[in-house]
């Protein structure tokens, strides 16, 4: 749900270019603060986790148009800088299958990596507080998904004026007719615009579906982490007594 499933050409130019610039800046910062050693050794793991995320994204829960992201579990296993790289790769591959546009790769990387990075920090924070694995993972996943979905809604809302332009393309009867009738109908249009692009409706559909998705992914991620904890607790790098 937190992935921007928009095709190319829907978001305004300035927005998706800013997305790429933002993603590059965040990537540079994260890799500057990361220790250099073992990066090439960890790359196959990044590839595997990214592949698991791609496979997760392909398992569609049709009634609510939801698919699991596995970003939080990837964040927990890879750490903040590598999960950023993994989400970038995932978005490139998903875009190559038409799952989200190519131009929104930057924005999607920012949104999805927010989920992974936040998931990583929340997981370690809640672990220190609760010392119980299931509730820790569930809360970390749930909150990280809320944050990334809200940021996705924020991104979509930034393009409102562009959607208005797309909607009015036909009403204006093409470019030339638009110029001739523009002055006469400007007042009427301003009134109509407010009704035609309705972000509240979009949000009111998205949030209840998202809520189901957050619950579902929270439960699935908790069960996955429990499974991993049973077999390879070392991967979770938990301090203190595991539960």
């Amino acid at each position, binding site marked *: 749900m937190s992935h921007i499933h928009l*095709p*190319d050409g829907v978001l305004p130019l300035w927005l998706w270019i800013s997305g790429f610039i933002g993603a590059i800046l965040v990537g540079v910062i994260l890799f500057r603060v990361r220790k250099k050693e073992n990066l090439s050794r960890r790359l196959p793991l990044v590839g595997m986790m*990214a592949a698991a995320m791609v496979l997760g994204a392909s398992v569609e829960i049709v009634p609510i148009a939801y698919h699991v992201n596995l970003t939080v579990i990837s964040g927990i296993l890879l750490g903040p800088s590598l999960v950023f790289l993994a989400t970038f790769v995932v978005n490139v591959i998903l875009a190559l299958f*038409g799952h989200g546009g190519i131009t929104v790769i930057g924005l999607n990387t920012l949104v999805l990596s927010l989920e992974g990075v936040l998931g990583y920090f929340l997981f370690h924070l809640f672990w220190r507080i609760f010392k119980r694995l299931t509730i820790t993972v569930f809360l970390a996943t749930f909150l990280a998904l809320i944050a990334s979905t809200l940021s996705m809604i924020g991104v979509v809302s930034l393009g409102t004026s562009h959607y208005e332009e797309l*909607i009015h393309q036909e009403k204006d009867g093409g470019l030339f007719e638009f110029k001739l009738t523009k002055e006469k109908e400007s007042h009427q249009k301003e009134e109509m615009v407010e009704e035609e692009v*309705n972000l509240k409706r979009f949000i009111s559909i*998205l949030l209840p579906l998202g809520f189901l998705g957050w619950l579902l992914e929270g439960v699935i991620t908790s069960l996955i982490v429990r499974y991993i904890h049973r077999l390879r607790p070392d991967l979770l790098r938990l301090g203190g007594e595991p539960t």
Partner: protein
Amino acid sequence: MIQLSYLDYSAVEGKSFLHRLSPKAKLAGMGLVLLGIITLKNLPALFSLYVVLLILFVVSRVPIKIFPLTLYPLIFAILFLFVSRFQIHFVLLIFLKVLCGSTGVVLLLATTPYPSIFSILGRFLPSLFVIALFLTYRSIFILLNVLEETQHAIYFRGGIQWRHPWRSLTNISNAFGHLILKGIDASEKMYESMVLRGFKDKIHYRGD
């Protein structure tokens, strides 16, 4: 995602003119399709672009099994349409943009082997990203094999049934957990074999 193997098979084994065209030309063509999707805002032009892509799809004899992959993104586009009042023009515009984009990229992947695409990307993207991209693509095939085996195991444990949601969730989660652990094991082996073959922070492609 299972269609991925068909995509790969089609890209390597296909003999059409689009398969024989240089990857650079196809990437440039994809760039033009993308430019069209971004700039075109009238339906006839976008529809014409979609028809051209469909003709290319048929002419390049890409397996028809792959075609549903181009329709999949429509599911998510429907959600976005709630920002509007479902004006027919807006709906068709969004659908055509989705279909042009997905058909274009699927056509590119179905007619161009992925090492060729990554090799070109490697010229202007940092090598770290390209290695990660390459390893991810390779890992998808490894995990697909694991997933196939895991599906049988899930089936024997009751599979996924809406009547038993908790058991189904546990089975799905165990399957993903198993997939991740197998993936981690495979990634360690992959790294060792890459080092044995002389990997030093760069993957070399044929023709480099």
